[in-house]
């Protein structure tokens, strides 16, 4: 198991795509959470509204700001990372290479999940670190007091961000195993994350009560609700407090478990050699 995890880590670290995805996540998060709002604030002529806009960029809002992108955009990155980790073995014909070396399918699968868990944790920590730096710079530039969130909130926030990104990673793993490849799982995963979720939330839910109810059980809205519970801006796509934070966390954990077990069972059963 330890060997499988080490072996998976080698592949993940050596894949240029991994680093590209991390960079894209950081840039997206910086631009939309800090740079664009700050530029708008700096352009404006002051007043109550823009004071609130500045407040939203300061260090004490770090937790919400750092995980606000995870329900949709950064979540998509976690999904792509997971599809690459699992689906590329089909695309390159390397399952055979991997599974004839001795470790059982279960060990190999757990190794992949562990390495994804590590990668998404790194992703979330990086978002927090970059956000901390950006908010600190803004606070100093605008001569605002620097108040960091409480350690407990920070830890809970990081944990929640990790959970959300693992749910999307788990979704990616399941798609990759079911569709046995890379391109189609990424395509379909993104259609769900970026298009279907938005359509459901923005078009269908407001006019159909049952869709609004259904939303409360879907992973995306629950991820959005969890992020909202940590103060993520409600203008961030996908972030809305449709359910409480605690409930959202439980539903998300259920999805993660479901995705991972389903994918594992399917991988175990199918003949891939």
């Amino acid at each position, binding site marked *: 198991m330890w060997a499988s995890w080490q072996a998976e880590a*080698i592949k993940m670290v050596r894949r240029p795509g991994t680093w590209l995805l991390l960079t894209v996540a950081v840039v997206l998060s910086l631009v939309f959470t800090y740079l664009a709002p700050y530029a708008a604030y700096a352009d404006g002529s002051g007043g109550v509204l823009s004071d609130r806009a500045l407040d939203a960029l300061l260090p004490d809002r770090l937790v919400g700001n750092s995980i606000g992108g995870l329900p949709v955009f950064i979540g998509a990155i976690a999904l792509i990372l997971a599809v690459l980790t699992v689906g590329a073995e089909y695309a390159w*014909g390397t399952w055979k290479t991997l599974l004839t070396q001795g470790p059982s399918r279960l060990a190999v699968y757990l190794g992949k999940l562990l390495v994804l868990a590590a990668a998404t944790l790194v992703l979330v920590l990086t978002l927090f670190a970059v956000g901390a730096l950006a908010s600190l710079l803004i606070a100093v530039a605008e001569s605002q007091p620097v108040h960091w969130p409480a350690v407990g909130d920070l830890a809970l926030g990081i944990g929640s961000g990790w959970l959300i990104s693992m749910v999307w990673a788990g979704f990616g793993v399941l798609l990759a195993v079911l569709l046995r490849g890379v391109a189609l799982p990424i395509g379909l995963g993104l259609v769900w994350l970026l298009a279907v979720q938005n359509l459901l939330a923005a078009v269908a839910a407001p006019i159909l009560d049952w869709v609004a109810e259904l939303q409360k059980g879907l992973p995306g809205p629950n991820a959005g609700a969890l992020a909202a519970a940590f103060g993520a801006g409600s203008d961030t796509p996908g972030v809305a407090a449709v359910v409480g934070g605690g409930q959202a966390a439980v539903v998300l954990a259920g999805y993660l478990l479901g995705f991972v077990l389903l994918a594992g069972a399917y991988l175990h059963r199918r003949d891939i050699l």
Partner: protein
Amino acid sequence: MDIQTTGLTRRFGKVTALHSVDLAIPGGMYGLLGANGAGKTTLMRILAGVLPPSGGQVRVGGHDLTTSAGRLAVQRRLGYLPQDLGLYPDLSPREFLDYVGLLKGLDDTRARHRQVDELLELVALTEVAGRRMKGFSGGMRRRVGIAQALLGDPALIVVDEPTAGLDPEERVRFRTLLAGLAGHRTVLLSTHIVEDVAQTCQHAAVMAGGRVVYTGMVTDLVRVGEGATWEVTSSGPAPTVGVVVSAISRTDGTHYRVVSSSRPSPDAVPVPPSLEDGYVALMQRASARAHTVPGGLRLPS
């Protein structure tokens, strides 16, 4: 490690890929010759412990491969180069071998690195050891493949059609490399190319339609073609009796080499058989017996 199979059978749904195969494979280099679809890969996957048999007995180095414990034990002791081994394009040969070494449980980092370097040297990949494998030629990929099979110094090496798709020079080189490995190991080489076996193996088995149709010395396989190999010179149509193994156009007409149990035409001249002729004669007999025609037979001229 010696290999023993008795009544080994494997079915995939309605297809029976192996019909009651009996084999006793001693040490050294052993050839497994057969056309595409003969069941070579299925047999090798079973021997490598990655596929359970449907029936019969199979023991490798004393381990019973019908049990999952036996399959695991064998997997730990053998090197397997599957047909079409997938490689990671972003890894270099050195990283890839290190990766496989980890999976094989070579935990001592320094010893593993030393072994990787030795193997890179052995398969002549030291110069490109740090380059990404994306864009490697077929021959280079195959050499990476044999190096990964050799990690952990296994006593048994199973290589499935390693020369398919290589150019002649690479094929010769790869064959020589394999033959060099057989010193203190058992090397089981499957191929559909008669020449591979002729050049490297003393003993071989021939498979057709999921059955073993010959086992024994490679030199004895030539004898199967005795009295069944003919040359026919004709400026008309090709002979219709038997299998034409070569046709060379000369000034006096086309010289056909024909393998046939009966004289293919009145003017046919018997000639001494080659290994290939012996193989073709064997295939004819096997198909006459089993009423199955071996398809996809490739005969290099």
